[in-house]
Structure formats: structure tokens, C-alpha cells
């Protein structure tokens, strides 16, 4: 599909000054001079051999390019999700247990704001405050944990906002169930009722969504990587599209699809651990 949009990778490599014969040589080298169907067929065959081809602009194996960038983006997404869970679940539970209290309003305010603030804007604000005014975190670069803090915070806040609402809603629903009344009637303490019974059940939908959010966070990382000058997958794919680097785009799509399904599958597995009623057959 992407080859239907205008743009020729050979021309991007050649630039504005190259002559027609130079361009023909580049096309031959890249293999884009062959018919579209032949190129696609070759690509499909190679994919079954786990060979995603070579990037047109840098000439390096696509698999290598992706694997080189993936750890950073993954750690960004995982840190982000951990952070959002750490914020969302306690706040959500307090909001639900003490409904319409000060904490509840605070939590709701946070989630409203978190959903409304774009993560790149939050990223810029955090940079201004914590890297420029108070030089706690580095302004750019990568390689250490401190480089990941601000980007994952900016990614995590928006996700936390969503998860917080979900936790609160799910918790309120569980608390209104009949087994809670039974638990209370048994004479269990409020603490036991809230955390042992209600929370455990309320967490199920939260985990599903958190898992899906992890996938989306890989996407959200694209903009954040740009703001924080991080060498992750997002920037790799962004430039691949700009430069019509077809093997890299195709490899990227397959890779992201694979990661998405892997996450979904893992979430399903996690389910059965948390809730013995769900068995994987």
C-alpha cells in the first residue's frame, strides 16, 4: 500500500543534483527497479525465513536496526506503565472507597488534567523545570536510567489518568456487589473487605487495559523520543516513512504487530493466574 503514495526512495537517496544515470544505478542497487509484485513476493518469501531485508537508506539489516532500538522504547513503555499503575491504583482505590471525599476530588482532578494534557507538552514542561531550571535530569542523550525518568513520567501521567478512572469505576462496581455485603456481614474489617475481596476482583479489567496501554505506549513513544532526543524505535520508523524506506517500514509493521499480539497473549495468561475461574484450555 505504502508504495502507492508518491515518493521514490532512490530519489531521496540521490538528492536534487544527481543525474538520471546515477538514479538508475541507485534504483538497481536498491532493487526498486523491479516490478512491484516481484518485490513484494521476494519480501514475503524472505519474511518466512525471518529475513526482513536491508534498509534502503542505511543498507543495514532491518532486524538489526529494530533490535538495536527496541530496548530503549520498551524500557520507556514499561517504566511508563509501572509508573502509571503505581499512581493510578492507589489513587483509584482511595477515590472509590472514600467517594466524594477530598481525595476523590483530587484524584478526579488529576485524571481530568492528565487526560487533557498532551504528553509532549508535559515533556517540554518537565524539561524546562527539571533539566533547565533545576538541573536534576539531563537535557538530552541516552544510556542511563536518569535519561529515562522524564520521558517515562510524561508518558505515564496520561496513562495513569485513564487507569485511575477505570480503577475507581471498577472498584465502585465491585463494592456494590452482594458478596461484599456478605463479607461485611461475616464481620470482616473494612480493610479486609476493600483490599482482599473488592480490589482483587476490581483489578481484572484494569490489567487488561494496562496491557493494551503498554502497546499504545510504544506508539506514544514516537513523539516523546523526539522531544527528549532519544534514539528509540519511534524515530527510526518516523524517518523510515519520510524517506520511503519500504523494507524498514514493512519490517516495523510486522514487528509492532508481533509485540502487540505478544502483549495481549501475556495479559490473557496473567488473567488465569489472578482469577482461577478463567482457565486456558
Amino acid at each position: 500500500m505504502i508504495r502507492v503514495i508518491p515518493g521514490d526512495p532512490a530519489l531521496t537517496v540521490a538528492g536534487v543534483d544527481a543525474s538520471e544515470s546515477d538514479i538508475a544505478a541507485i534504483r538497481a542497487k536498491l532493487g526498486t527497479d523491479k516490478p512491484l509484485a516481484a518485490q513484494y513476493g521476494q519480501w514475503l518469501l524472505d519474511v518466512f525465513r525471518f529475513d526482513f531485508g536491508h534498509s534502503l537508506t542505511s543498507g543495514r539489516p532491518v532486524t538489526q536496526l529494530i533490535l538495536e532500538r527496541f530496548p530503549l522504547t520498551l524500557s520507556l513503555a514499561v517504566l511508563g506503565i509501572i509508573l502509571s499503575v503505581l499512581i493510578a491504583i492507589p489513587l483509584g482505590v482511595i477515590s472509590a472507597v472514600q467517594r466524594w471525599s477530598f481525595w476523590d476530588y483530587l484524584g478526579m482532578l488529576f485524571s481530568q488534567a492528565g487526560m487533557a494534557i498532551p504528553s509532549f507538552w508535559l515533556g517540554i514542561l518537565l524539561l524546562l523545570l527539571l533539566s533547565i531550571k533545576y538541573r536534576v535530569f539531563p537535557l538530552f542523550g541516552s544510556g542511563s536510567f536518569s535519561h529515562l525518568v522524564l520521558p517515562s513520567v510524561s508518558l505515564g501521567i496520561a496513562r495513569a489518568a485513564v487507569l485511575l478512572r477505570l480503577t475507581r469505576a471498577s472498584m465502585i462496581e465491585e463494592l456494590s456487589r452482594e458478596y461484599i455485603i456478605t463479607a461485611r456481614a461475616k464481620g470482616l474489617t473494612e480493610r479486609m473487605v476493600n483490599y482482599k475481596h473488592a480490589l482483587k476482583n476490581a483489578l481484572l479489567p484494569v490489567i487488561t487495559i494496562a496491557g493494551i496501554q503498554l502497546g499504545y505506549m510504544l506508539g506514544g513513544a514516537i513523539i516523546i523520543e523526539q522531544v527528549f532526543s532519544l534514539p528509540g524505535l519511534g524515530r527510526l520508523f518516523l524517518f523510515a516513512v519520510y524517506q520511503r524506506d519500504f523494507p524498514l517500514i514493512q519490517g516495523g509493521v510486522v514487528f509492532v504487530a508481533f509485540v502487540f499480539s505478544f502483549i495481549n497473549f501475556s495479559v490473557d495468561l496473567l488473567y488465569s493466574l489472578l482469577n482461577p475461574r478463567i482457565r486456558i484450555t
Partner: protein
Amino acid sequence: MNGKLSSIIIICLAMIVSCLFSPAATHAGVKTVNFALSGNPDTLDPHGTSGTLTFQTLKSVYDTLVEPDPTGKIVPALAEKWAVSEDGLTWTFTLRSGVLFHNGDPLTSKDVKATIERIQNKETGSPNANEFAPIVGIETPDDLTVILRLKAPSAPLLGTLASGWGAILPKSLIDSKHDFAQKPVGTGPFKLTEWIRDGKIVLEKNPDYWMKGLPRVDKVIMHIIPERAVQVQGLISGQIDISYIIDREDVPLLTSSPDVKIKKSLTSLIMVMAMNCSRPPLNDLRVRQAINYAIDKKKVLDVAYGGGEPIGTFMDYSNAYYRDFTNLYPYDPAKAKKLLAEAGVGKDTVLEMFLPQNYPPHVKAGEIYQDMLARVGLNVKIKLVDWSTWIGDVYRKARFDLTVIGHTGKLDPNGTLSNFGIKEKKYVRWDHPGAAALIAEAARTTGFENRKTLYDQALALMAKEVPFVFLGSSYRRVGIRKNISDFRMTPSLDTFDFRWTDIQ
């Protein structure tokens, strides 16, 4: 509940505190320049791309036979001297002795031969191969002499040999199919020791560099930072020493900082709005003239490009071949309206203007053009396209009425002007065999004065027939920390030269 909450808070705090220990301190005694690069080079093979970022990086890693000095004059580099035969067909270069490649190989004439053959080899797919086409034979009578045999006299060849794509590679590694795209090995002032894609490029001093006492710094770290705002803040806070893409909007902020200075110089860019001379109504000279009268060039240059010097023809302002034609079409909307009325062009004619969205200044300029043209009664529709589309559809296939772009300067005027006047060769589709003949003749002619006479006539024809709105050459602003001295940029090529750079 409180216990659980507080433990979470403690964990969070511990995470934050642990980060406080990381900022890396520079080692005492090692002079390191932190440079902000605005993007990641696609490849580091000087013969595999046309990307400016690649040549900007490689300028420090490779040398060329000859190179431009700060005034743009071509001076010896790896070649100590050179001579051109009377008929212009034999060029003899004498190489400097004792030059070493980063892998220890001494530089010999064999390396030069292997390099030029690599560029000419179709399998390399060099976008600049055509510039080396005049060379039909390379002889190496001894280790330090290279003789190039040409099929016809070619004045532009010297400029080509001085450009980034004329970088000399070691023969032994060319033969062993070394991966130059990842690991460049040259004779340059710095060795490339680390490249984290989209992260940073680390250059370390080559102690055996052939220019004695240079380079002066031990290390240059090019941090790849796409966001301009981050570069500016890095400059103010001292995490960055040099940033070469300072916008006029950032100037007040930077000048208010006591540690930063701003160096303003003229770029070799030729900023234009191109007109497709093969499409009606732009094939009518009166319409192109009207468009030129309708544009307040100084204003566009100031607002969209942060200021510059207006030009009236297709040559950059600081070029030795530049001639002033700016008074030919002054800003005169009334005259523009009159010409349009004569040509019978009214509101019902829609002109499509294609703007490359990855270049915000061109987009801004396009919007101002649209507004100015609307005032004389021209209906312009803007279409934003990405770079690949621009190169493919607009530039190569000429599917446009109007477009806004900047042409980079070239070391030799032939690079700027070749093929103009031949309708199907240039995107403006300007048909003028007379101009094309002058330009072709100038490429075969030697001697500055002889060539200039020919180019003067060609440039005059372009200025009169206006296949473009010639806008001007814009300023470049480089932000530098005050303790950094002598950072240079190569004229016309816009590459970075750290050889004389020092830290106080």
C-alpha cells in the same frame, strides 16, 4: 492502608534520588566540544548518499585531494600541488608524503585510484558518479603521483574533488569490502569511535594528522538533537557548546545569556519561488514578470528566513560569480496588475503552490507569497507535501505551478547552473537554448575571467526571463559558548570544520 501508600511513596522517592548521581562529569585535561547536530546521518559512506548530514559529519573523518579555504578558494589538501596540462586533458596531482589513514595505512596514489574507481563503479550507486564521468583514465606512475586523464576539458572537476563526495578511502579496505557506511576510515583530523544512531557521534583526535598541531581539541561529541528549543537551552546551560541552527526568534534569549555569542554569516543558499514555465499561464513571460513585481522580496526574506541579502538571479550572494540584477523587477504591485490584465489572467486562474512541509521556513514563505499574489488578483492554492513527494513529483516530474525551495550553493558555478535552459532537464522547464549553450561552454572554459564573461550573460538571461522569483541568500546564525574559539564552516559546502576549534 497508610503503610502501603507510604511504601509506594518511598519507592518513588528512592527512584528519583538514585537519578541524581548520574550526570557525567568531563575528565580533567581532555578538551571536549559538545556539538548539537540536528539529525541522524543515513549512512557514513561518502559515496552512497547526497545527505548534507553525512558530509557534515565526515568532513572531520576524511580529507579530499583539494579543499576550499575560508574564502572559498580551492587550496591543496591531500595533494600538495597539482598541474593541469595545456589542453586541459591531463591533471597531475602530487600527494603529500607521510599521511596515514586511521588504520595505519600510508596514503598512496593507489588509494586515490581505488577511490575514484569506487565512485565510478555502478554497484556503488553514488549519486555523484556523474560528476566524475569526465575522468576516463587514472595512472599511478609512483606512490605519490596521480595522473587523471579526461575525455574533455572540465572546469568543474576541481570543485568536485574538493567536495565531501571526493573523500579519499584506503585501498586495502575498499578491496576487502569494508563497511564504510558504519565505520568510516579516513585520513581526517578525527577518528570516528562511536555512533549511536539518533543518539550521538563521538569523534576523537587523530594524533597523526598531517596538519601539524591540529586539531586542537581532543574530542568532539555530536549530540543528535532534533528539537531546536532543546539545543538552545543546552547552549545556555552549557551542556552544548555549539549549535548551528539558531533561529532569529531565539536570538534575544541567547544574547541575554552571558556565556553565549552568536555568529551571523551569509549562507550560500539561493532562496527561490520556482515557476513551471511549461504550464499556462506561467509560460507567458508577462505573468512571470507580474509575479516578480508583486513580491516584496526583502519582506519575505526577513519574515520567513530571518533576514538575508536579496539576489536578482540564480547565484548566491557571496559567490565570486554573483552579479547584481535586483533592480530589474522591484516591488511594484500596480505594474503587476497591469501586466496580468494584459496577459488576461484573472481570479478564475488557480495556481497550485507545492510546499515541502519538512522545511517550515519555506512553508512560511509560501504563505506570504500567496498573500502578496492575492493582492494583485492571483488565486494561489497551497498544497503541503512531504520531502519524498517533493523530490519525486515536484522536482523530478515537474508536476507543479509554483513551489518554494532553497538551492544549496556549489563550489563550482557549473554545479549551480548546469542544464538550465534545457527544458526537460530542470524542474522549472525553462526553455532557452541560448542560455544552455553559454552554460555548457563555460564548463569547458578555463580561467576565472573567461568563465565569468560567459556566466554573466547566462545569469542576465535568467534574471530577465525569470523562471523563478529570485529571493535572496539567507543568514545563518551559529550559537557558540564564549569559551570556544575558531569554529569554522566550509564555504558553499556548509560542513563543520573543527580543526582550529579550541576551548579556553
